[in-house]
């Protein structure tokens, strides 16, 4: 099994190469090759410094220099990221059948998208990798989450004049669109994460839309839902963890 430092280095390298627009397959190839090397080196009692030298960043650069810039992949990845962000934002209102567009909401989303693209390169290469495995990582995730929720609360409080309110049919079409984006992403990135997150987001809205009012407010059913929710989470994390373990053993 690889050490924490070795895993950390591989994550940093991967993010660095992705942010530099390198070819996905080439990245995968070099990461595989290096993890195979690190695995053997660490088993022989060597340190990560013996492999990457004194400056991991200089080493990453030397690898990046040997790889070409994959313009096609860059052109696919950027709009797909924007679509995914939009799908996350539209998902919950679409399930509720309350999809609407308001000026503030749209402007906020556009500003958020532009800002995230600017921050994207910086965060991906400079900030995020250093935070993996540290408590700062969770603090930043938590803060981002709170900011997002704050934004939605703000929009809900002050933005009462949507210029477009979807009919139930239109809401369902938006919903279908979101689900398509999530599935496309999952297939493309070969991870479940873009499907797992929407499932979590959808619990509340689905309950709101499809469960009759009197059941929704019955304490018995609320308790039941909490218990099943926690059980579901435990099972999910068990499988995720097991998967991870198997991956790092193989």
């Amino acid at each position, binding site marked *: 099994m690889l050490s924490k430092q070795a895993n950390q280095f591989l994550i940093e390298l991967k993010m660095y190469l992705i942010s530099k627009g390198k070819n996905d397959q080439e990245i995968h190839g070099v990461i595989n*090759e290096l993890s195979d*090397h690190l695995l053997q080196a660490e088993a022989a009692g060597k340190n990560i410094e*013996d492999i990457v*030298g004194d400056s991991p960043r200089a080493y990453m650069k030397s690898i990046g220099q*040997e*790889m070409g810039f994959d313009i096609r992949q860059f052109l696919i990845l950027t709009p797909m990221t924007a679509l995914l962000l939009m799908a996350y934002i539209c998902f919950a209102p679409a399930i509720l059948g309350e999809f609407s567009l308001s000026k503030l909401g749209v402007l906020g989303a556009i500003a958020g998208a532009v800002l995230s693209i600017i921050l994207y390169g910086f965060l991906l290469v400079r900030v995020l990798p250093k935070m993996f495995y540290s408590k700062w990582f969770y603090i930043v995730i938590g803060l981002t989450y709170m900011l997002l929720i704050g934004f939605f609360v703000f929009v809900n409080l002050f933005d009462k004049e949507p210029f477009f309110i979807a009919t139930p049919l239109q809401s369902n079409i938006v919903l279908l669109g979101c689900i398509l984006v999530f599935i496309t992403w999952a297939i493309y990135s070969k991870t479940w994460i873009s499907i797992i997150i929407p499932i979590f987001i959808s619990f509340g809205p689905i309950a709101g839309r499809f469960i009759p009012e009197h059941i929704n407010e019955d304490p018995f059913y609320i308790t039941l839902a909490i218990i099943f929710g926690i059980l579901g989470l435990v099972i999910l994390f068990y499988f995720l963890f097991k998967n991870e373990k198997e991956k790092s053993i193989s």
Partner: protein
Amino acid sequence: MSTTSQMLKGLLEGSLLALIAKGETYGYEIIEKLKEHHFAVVSEGSIYPVLMRLQKNNFVTSVQRKSPSGPKRKYYSITKEGEEELERFKQHWNKVSSGVSSLLEEEE
């Protein structure tokens, strides 16, 4: 960077080519073989950018095969162009090393 590591860096490409020419091999094994020859690399990972360059220039090819320990491993072998490049490297090296040696001997 010390003088030694500067020098070695320039020689790594030809040396890796020479090693791969002796038979199909992979990253970690290359490092072990280099050590057997007392070839001091700057850091073990420094061979990978060089291997990538060799492959880009068509001097070596690679195949993925399952390793005994499980994950897929990239095995390198030399190409026709690689053999020609190795020949050039040998000639250059002989010229340079004999020149430097004779110079240094003269000084003593």
